């Protein structure tokens, strides 16, 4: 192992060359490190933004595709099925990968999914019940033959409105999984309705439903839970649409209760469920989840939207910054390898005597090459280690400057509202301000990953740059040591 000692002695003896190489390595290392840090920062910013935007995905209609096909005549409007009414179902949409109940359930059957909910609303009429109303003077308005209520179907064990705090269960329970799956007639009602109508847990009452072209169906529901709503509905909406829009006048019924209204299983499958949410376990899995879904069904008339517009709006510039710095790192590394390779290649010529002597005394070519590589590696490692002090300072400033300026630009453009998804769950969307605030706290400092990347680059640089000298050694004819010198 004396070749290691020789390497050290060489470096010590050839201070000029050592310092020159060290300086070049230091410059390269600083650029590389700065590039890596910027790349890292942008990657982190992307992840952070993903997390801030949330792990929610909406399965929505792809109107562009649908209208496109209609215009081209591929799709007949009549074939679409009944697109009117409150509960819409369409087999064509189902087969075209649109957001129908069947497709939705297929997509959410995934390891990425933490929870999901779909909700379908329609109106029912109850003759016996009194409606809640804002106008306390007139009391409830009887609409001729009964009060109108809004029904919200849900498929999750705990409906989304309850998980996100729009409503709160005050007594009783939610529907069990069995009740949801079998479509038993259980119902959740608002506490005001309960009070107005003197209803308690366990009571049953009858409503009359009329969806699509079905006959009016009277169904008895058993109250299993009473909730309180926190949702405030715009007065003007209520003025136009009637009191049934008030959140107090809402019943929560399990999705499959549609069967008891008279829908076939196949019809339920084809119901459009545009108001839905899929919560993933990890926001960073969104792309993987989308890919998985695309593999299960061809999502043509539908689209999985994870606030992509907002994300892209925020992340577009940062993403390209990351890409550019990645390319820069490669360019610098290659250029560096060339420069250092050239220097070592030039010095190997003046070392051919040494190579000859070593070969003549029986040193193996491999050890001679190892010595050369080691010499460069030692310099590289020291330089790269030094750069972790200077480079981190550099990178931090660059990244901060860039991230700040990019964010200032996106701040304005993302307020036009288009970036927001307009599903019924839009109240879940985080404030852009929030996201930006979180994002600027992205940590740009050195971390083990960057250090490892740096080390790996330094090592491969030194090996790369000694390729030419090594080839020279490998092809060296030891007799040269005798002949060149005596002639």
């Amino acid at each position, binding site marked *: 192992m004396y070749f290691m000692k020789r390497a050290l002695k060489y470096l010590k003896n050839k201070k000029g060359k050592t310092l020159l190489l060290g300086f070049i390595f230091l410059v390269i290392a600083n650029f590389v490190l700065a590039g890596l840090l910027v790349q890292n920062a942008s990657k982190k910013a992307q992840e952070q933004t993903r997390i801030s935007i949330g792990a929610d995905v909406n399965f929505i209609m792809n109107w562009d595709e649908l209208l496109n096909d209609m215009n081209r005549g591929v799709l007949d409007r009549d074939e679409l099925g009944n697109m009117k009414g409150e509960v819409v179902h369409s087999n064509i949409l189902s087969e075209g990968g649109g957001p129908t109940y069947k497709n939705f359930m297929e997509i959410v059957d995934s390891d990425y999914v933490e929870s999901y909910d779909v909700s379908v609303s329609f109106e029912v009429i109850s003759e016996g019940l009194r409606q809640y109303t804002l106008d306390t003077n007139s009391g409830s308005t009887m609409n001729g033959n009964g009060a109108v209520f809004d029904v919200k179907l849900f498929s999750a064990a705990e409906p989304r409105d309850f998980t996100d705090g729009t409503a709160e269960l005050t007594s009783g329970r939610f529907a069990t999984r069995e009740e949801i799956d079998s479509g038993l007639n259980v119902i959740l009602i608002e506490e005001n309705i309960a009070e107005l109508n003197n209803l308690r847990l366990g009571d049953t009452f009858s409503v009359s439903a009329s969806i699509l072209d079905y006959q009016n169906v009277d169904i008895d529901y058993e109250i299993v839970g009473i909730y309180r709503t926190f949702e405030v509905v715009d007065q003007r909406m209520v003025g136009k649409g009637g009191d049934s829009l008030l959140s107090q006048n809402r019943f929560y019924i399990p999705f499959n209760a549609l069967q008891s209204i008279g829908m076939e299983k196949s019809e339920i499958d084809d119901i459009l469920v545009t108001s839905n949410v899929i919560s993933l376990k990890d926001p960073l899995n969104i792309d993987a989840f989308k890919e998985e879904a695309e593999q299960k069904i061809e999502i043509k008339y539908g689209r999985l939207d994870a606030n992509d517009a907002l994300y892209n709006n925020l992340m577009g510039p940062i993403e390209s910054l990351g890409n550019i710095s990645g390319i820069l790192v490669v360019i610098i590394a290659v250029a560096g390898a060339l420069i250092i390779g050239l220097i070592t290649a030039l010095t190997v010529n003046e070392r051919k005597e*040494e190579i*000859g002597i*070593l*070969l003549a005394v*029986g040193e193996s070519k491999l050890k001679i090459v190892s010595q050369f590589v080691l010499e460069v590696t030692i310099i590289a490692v020291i330089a790269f280690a030094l750069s972790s002090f200077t480079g981190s300072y550099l990178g931090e400033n660059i990244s901060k400057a860039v991230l700040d300026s990019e964010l200032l630009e996106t701040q304005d453009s993302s307020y036009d509202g288009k970036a927001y998804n307009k599903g019924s769950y839009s109240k879940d969307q985080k404030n852009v301000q929030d996201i930006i605030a979180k994002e600027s706290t992205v940590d740009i400092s050195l971390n083990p990953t960057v250090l490892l990347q740096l080390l790996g680059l330094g090592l491969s640089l030194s090996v790369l740059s000694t390729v030419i000298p090594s080839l020279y050694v490998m092809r060296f004819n*030891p007799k040269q040591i005798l002949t060149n010198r*005596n002639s």
Partner: protein
Amino acid sequence: MSILNLEHVSYGYIDGNKKRMILSDLSYQFERGKFYTVLGPSGSGKTTLLAIAGGLEKTQEGKLLFDGKNINDIGLGRYRKKYLSFVFQQFNLIPYLTAVENVVNVMEITDNKVPKPYKETALNLLNQFGIVKSKAERSILKLSGGEQQRVAIARGLATNVDLILADEPSGNLDTATEKEIIKIFRSLAKDYNKCVIVVTHSEGVSSLSDIQLELKDGKLIERR
């Protein structure tokens, strides 16, 4: 038994489109305890002969036996490493190592049975050749030509090998130093029972050897 036995060795260079033979059907047996010199005009092939004898070059025809073993069977690298040492006209030593480090370096590489610690053994050896400790720990660039050659010879001995090959080892030295070096070579043969083969242009050097050889028409001829 002869230490080095050249049997029907031939070697030539391709010159243009025909082959020019430098050594042709050369046979000779070198013995331990003898100091040989090889004379011959420039271009006669002395260096080529030494390169072949030292395993730096392969024979094209014929074979080389070291202690009866074909050196191709030993392996040229191993042969150079374990059984012989070279002394060149110049550039014998690695410039960024001190004299003693140069000696230790070959001890480490050769890994023959040499008393440890290597550094001490090396210093003693150098001392025998008149290189005192203060000089031994100097960069070899700060030693005179004669001192450098003595270090090179000491290095040759450090590995406990029996065959020493030298190509014009005194070519660059003044007469006094040359005499001193030759004296050392003689002593290596006489006192240490080595086989020493020295290529030289100098009749003076040659006259001090046990056996004077001349390379002529690709063959070795004994003068005496």
